[in-house]
């Protein structure tokens, strides 16, 4: 079984309350650690470069550089980092765009389990190396 205690996560969301919530929820969840946070895409790329996380939880609709564009950059510059799109609304457009980028979409919810499951699925290289 994967020991998820090493999974280091960067949270990107323009809502301070969501950033705080995820920091607390992932902190209490077994095996996750939030190592950085950003409020939009450009800041996210910088934080991710500095912290080298295993996975990124990415909001999509943000001022500045939005999540769609940021994920495109991450796929090019940090292809080994897992990405999960964490969004308030996920219609056909969002799902198609994320499928094209190979990114799982999780709807924001007070239940953190779907998100932690998706984070684990987003880092298959770590899963293989530790199984």
């Amino acid at each position, binding site marked *: 079984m994967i020991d998820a205690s090493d999974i280091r996560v960067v949270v990107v969301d*323009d*809502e301070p*309350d*969501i950033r*705080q*919530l995820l920091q*607390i*929820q992932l902190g*209490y969840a077994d095996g996750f650690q939030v190592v950085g946070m950003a409020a939009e895409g450009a800041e996210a790329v910088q934080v991710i470069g500095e912290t080298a996380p295993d996975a990124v939880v990415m909001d*999509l*609709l*943000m*001022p*500045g550089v*939005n999540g*769609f564009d940021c994920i495109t950059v991450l796929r090019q510059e940090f292809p080994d980092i897992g990405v999960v799109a964490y969004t*308030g*609304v996920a*219609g056909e457009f969002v799902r198609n765009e994320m499928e094209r980028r190979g990114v799982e979409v999780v*709807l*924001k*919810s*007070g*239940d*953190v389990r779907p998100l932690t499951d998706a984070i684990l699925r987003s880092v298959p290289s770590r899963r293989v190396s530790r199984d």
Partner: protein
Amino acid sequence: VDEQDRAWVEQRAFNVIGHELRTPVTTVRGLAEVLAANPDSAERADLTDSLLRNARRLEALVDELLAVSGVMTALPAGPAEPVDLGESMTRAWPDDKGLVVAQSGLALARRQSVDRILAAIAENAVAYGERPVTLAARRAGTVTVLVIDSPGAELPGEDVKFALEPFWRGERAVTRRPGLGLGLTIAEVLAHHEGGRLWVEAREGGGMVTYLELPAA
């Protein structure tokens, strides 16, 4: 805006409401789950603050939604009176910077309606445009036309077309805007209620020009 556009805008409404409700609902449930599982959490005070803040935000969103139906069902009543449009806009403006009243004018309308219309226009101009915003009123026969010149970025055609539609918050691709996008919709209803009309046009050089026509005093 034709019927096909209207159906599309109405569909958007559900997305906008869903998105705006999602953050506070997620936060309230998430924090409550954390507190329930960890009643002695060291961050208890912070969590409670955040819970309260998001509960209030939910309440404000519901209030904003109900305000639309409230405006439709409880329009300002009472006699019309002469209202100074420049004064009303100056009261609505959030600070003392960036509003130029080049020429004020008098309308014959219910003060409460005019104040709400101009508050919505001010809020829109501050949120989407640049300063200074210039007001100029002119008398044209039996009506007074107030022109609100609000410079800003070049607007996509749809922003002008849908500006008065409910739940439209400007469509810069997927960049999120705060609020539900109901201000100008309510303003247009109130303008009609006062025997006038409200419309917007793209501004040459970028931004938007809003026109408010009301019976002249």
